[in-house]
């Protein structure tokens, strides 16, 4: 086996196992811990695809910022009583199972209905080029300038919205 294959198997198995533990863990903080490890493994997989920028951003944004905020909320709210939630609300449990199965079916269909036999081949030098920061930056500010600015605007609106809502509660 090549080094890349061994690394792929390692990262992929870590990703799958931690994803399962994220779902089945009883304590939300432990769930969050496994999700962080999952993000780490995912970032390793990106690196194997020579998407350097994507892999580092995955860690900075998802593992480093978003999950810390999640943990922050979890630790402040201390949701330990929540595991009895489904025992009390039977109807919610049935609803959750139906939604879960529906989503699973959708994903499975999307994966198996697509042409898996088809291999996408890009020369490795070109894919290395695409993964670099300079290439991504150049494309964001030229080819994809409008969508980029539009997303920035949407995020700004969301931030202002969050501030307005939290201010209202304080007053």
């Amino acid at each position, binding site marked *: 086996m090549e080094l890349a294959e061994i690394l792929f198997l390692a990262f992929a198995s870590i990703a799958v196992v931690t994803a399962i533990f994220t779902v089945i863990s009883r304590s939300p903080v432990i769930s969050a811990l496994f999700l962080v490890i999952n993000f780490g493994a995912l970032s390793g997989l990106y690196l194997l695809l020579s998407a350097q920028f994507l892999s*580092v951003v995955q860690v900075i944004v998802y593992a*480093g910022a978003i999950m810390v905020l999640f*943990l922050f909320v979890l630790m402040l709210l201390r949701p330990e009583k929540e595991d009895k939630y489904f025992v009390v609300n039977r109807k919610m449990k049935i609803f959750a199972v139906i939604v879960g199965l529906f989503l699973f079916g959708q994903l499975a269909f999307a994966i198996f209905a697509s042409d898996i036999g088809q291999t996408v081949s890009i020369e490795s030098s070109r894919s290395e080029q695409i993964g670099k*920061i300079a290439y991504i930056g150049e494309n964001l500010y030229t080819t994809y300038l409008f969508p980029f600015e539009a997303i920035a605007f949407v995020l700004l609106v969301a931030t202002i919205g969050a501030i307005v809502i939290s201010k209202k509660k304080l007053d």
Partner: protein
Amino acid sequence: MDMFTLFAVKLIQVLIIAQVMLLTVSYLVYFERKISAWAQSRVGPNRVGPAGLLQPFADVLKLLLKEDIMPEKANKLVHIIAPIIALFVAFTTYAVIPIGPDITLFGLNIPLSVAPEIDMGILYVLALTSIGVYAITFSGWSSGSKYSLLGGIRSSAQMISYEISMGFAIAGVLLMAGSTLPTKIVELQSGWMWNAIVQPIGFIVFVVSAFAETNRLPFDLPEAEPELVGGFHTEYSSMKFAGFFLAEYANMIIASALIVTLYLGGWQIPYIETLGWAPEIVIPLQIGAFAFKLGALLFFFIWVRWSLPRFRYDQLMDLGWKVMFPLSLINIVWVAAIIMIFGIK
């Protein structure tokens, strides 16, 4: 260089850096105690060895022999993992920091940095430091103690707040260099074109954020003794406590190394190339210059700790969001203006 030699060279580099790091960390603790003693007109450690020089070894032995106490209400696994995360982050960040120019040894061209050519460069450091928050958050949560939890929560808030200003300050440096590679950032600061002189606002923001990110006084609220006993590491003992202790000092060295690399010209000595000396003399001098700048900054870190009182929590947040964050934005505008006017590229 074939695969095997590359691997061997890197392994040796990693081993040397790890050893030097561990030694520096233990002697940094010694110097912290000596300088604090000097600041408070005391003698400081002077019993073990000449002038107390063997004190670090005595400290480590003491910590190893202490009983390892696991609190009853602790989440055992996470409680053990937390200091490991802290140490992991503290010792892996060095990979991208160049301590000198490329050298030629036994006919091999060796860059004096473990991973000099990775495209993400400085972003790798940011990614790892953002993982470092988990060590404190998890240790606070898993201890099952209110002091630890409060310390952990304070720390996450503090680190997130200052990470933003830190990121924007780094953005100024990246704009100037046009590259994320630390080696390139250092090369572009030749002569007196140090980033600390070109963008002083960014430099100040970065230094203040570095203090906040390493949880050093005046920003050591996660472990504020009078209010929180020991903060996030209240429930830690023996080598698990030592893990956090070592990580704090290792983080100080990383922060100083980053400041040197990004703002103080890295290993460069201004205008040494005009003297026309042989590389055998210049390169050791340059490595020495890196060590000297690093040492001066570490002294500054310790000096500040024993001179300034601790901030209050609301003052800390005000400083982070209302002063440092706008300043870092002003710095970006300033750098952009400089690039526009002088056409530096």
